[in-house]
């Protein structure tokens, strides 16, 4: 599938991402979670992608020290894994289709402009990809950007680790009103 075909599909149908992921599936480029995985939705390739994107999506809000940053991203991925599961089977599949597209070399390169593997992509490459999707004249790319953006920003800012920086003191009367499980 070339870029033009993909774009045609994209313009024609909101299900186009599914079509591309089908290509990925047919060419054997998807993986699935191993049995007994501690993860409910995110596969290893998805976690690599999200780990690469997080410092760009959340620039200025993650810890700068590398080990602390990695830890913050890992914590966020665990929260995100459950949040995706809670979206239900329909939305989870759509997200997984998007991740398939992003993890399959040809479709990743054609749609994002990032030709290297995610773990090797530069900050600039990823920033360009996010801006390209956000500013695209094709609604489908805007939609995909919105999905990734909402998921990651809500997950990050939903956690106490993000609160001091934004001046949110947390819920009121926690000692009285929060019931420890």
């Amino acid at each position, binding site marked *: 599938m070339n870029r033009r075909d993909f774009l045609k599909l994209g313009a024609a149908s909101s299900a186009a991402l599914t079509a591309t992921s089908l290509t990925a599936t047919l060419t054997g480029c998807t993986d699935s979670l191993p049995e007994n995985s501690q993860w409910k939705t995110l596969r290893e390739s998805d976690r690599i992608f999200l780990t690469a994107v997080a410092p760009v999506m*959340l620039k200025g809000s993650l810890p700068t020290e590398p080990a602390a940053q990695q830890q913050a991203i890992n914590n966020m991925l665990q929260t995100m894994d*459950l949040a995706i599961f*809670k979206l*239900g089977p329909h939305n989870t599949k759509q997200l997984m289709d998007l991740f398939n597209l992003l993890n399959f070399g040809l479709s990743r390169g054609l749609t994002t402009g990032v030709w290297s593997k995610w773990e090797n992509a530069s900050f600039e490459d990823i920033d360009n990809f996010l801006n390209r999707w956000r500013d695209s004249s094709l609604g489908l790319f805007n939609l995909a950007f919105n999905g990734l*953006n909402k998921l990651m920003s*809500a997950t990050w800012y939903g956690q106490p680790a993000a609160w001091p*920086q934004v*001046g949110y003191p947390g819920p009121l009367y926690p000692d009285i009103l*929060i*019931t420890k499980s």
Partner: protein
Amino acid sequence: MAIPDIFKQRAQSENWAITDAGKLEQNQTIEADVIIIGTGAGGGVSAEVLSQAGLNVVMIEEGGLFTSDNFNMDELQAYGDLYQEGAGRATKDGAISIFQGRAVGGTTVVNWTSSFRTPNPTLEHWQTEHGVKGFEPNVMQTYFEQMEKRLNVEKWAMPPNANNDALKVGCEANQWSWAVIPRNVAGCWNLGYCGTGCPTNAKQSMLVTTVPEALKNGARLFYRCSADRIVFSEHKAESVECLAIGADGDTPTGVRLTFKAPHIVLAGGAINNPGLLLRSNAPDPHERIGKRTMIHPVNASLAKMDKEVNPFYGAPQSIYSDHFQWNTEGGIGFKLEVPPMQPAMGAQIVGFHGMRLTNTMEHLPNLQGTIALLRDGFDEGSQGGTVELDQGGKPILDYPITDYIWQGLRKAHHVMAEVQFAAGAKSVMPLHHDAKFYSSLKECKAAIDALPQELHRQRIMTAHLMGGCAMGEDERQSVVNSQGRFHHADNLYIIDGSVFPTSIGANPQLSIYGLALKQASQLAANIKSA
């Protein structure tokens, strides 16, 4: 725990019959006088009324049972547990985010407590344009009064939080009308976390009012019990087939429950009601099921204020303006309100990434949000959306944004910017991909006029799902009659917001309560006299 959890206290002393269907190991058949599907505003009130009449009632709820001990003011936990599709529900094309509840108590567990009567022009429009009988303003007044008393609805007596006060100040400066919002709370702590489940049981949601009352009256509650299909015979709904849902809230366990009763009340809300009827191949000769689904399309404007607003604290909604609601000069009317903004909600509506996101979020204590809720369904240019089924049988709403609605969104952006600057905003940003914070009203208004009217770039949301099973006397135009009875099965009633022929023009909970009290009282009388 400082606040007694009534589901722990009263459940034992009053011998409540509550079953987590997900824990059952064998298929079951349950019989009753009335089956009620859904425990939100419609189902909760119906359960109270019908159980008070002495009928043997069963309540079925797809969501989980979460109570005050579970409500810890934690956004992510709440979005995952208490909202449809983990708060990620959206319209078919993904362009509109849908916030709808999914738990025992339904959306009333997570709504922001605004309690308005159905406006008279809406009731009159239903009568003249949609053939609805018996919903005249003077008739409905008594039902609204009773429900206001039942749920302690009163105008918020405390000062508004700064987020709401900005709307008041901005309207006053423009000489636009505004008023205080009536809320269904008793002993409210003014926390601001209505949207994540009330931790003090102050919100008089169905979870702490009608559902407990029905349980006290002997009604049985089955939760994590998802209505899969209604079995129809000629002119009759025979039974309801349900799937037990496991503890993760999503995965069917394989156990099936069959509910049989001479009367069935459907109260799963807009989107899910039409979904169930479509899955069930319910008779629909005029193809009305799922049509005219209304959402009060919402757009929003963010302002950086000159002082702290702390939009995460305090009663989330206490001031509104209907200045642009009815006097519309041919355009769509809208209500002005404000949203609470805890960090996750704030971050995910901004639409930025990188330093623009970080810089915006660092202003969170100074951010003021204003929203416009468009009154859809009253004009040729706004016929609502259509609920259909996806390949897996999940209902999905196809909602077109028409030119008429685009014009309304733009007009609302102008009005919201005027409110915010008049209230002391240093800069204002209409929520749209191509907008930024503008530091003068003139610059902001010029930018609004230039914003492309494109889906996925304009931020659009809804928390008010209405219609899709419209009531009316003409079965070619409606799904149920004015008493809520399904046109094509004599013992199936639909009692909730899905029967509204248009949107309400106000936050819909009290409209649903009043309607449910009326319809369920009539149904109880009919059953008792039969």
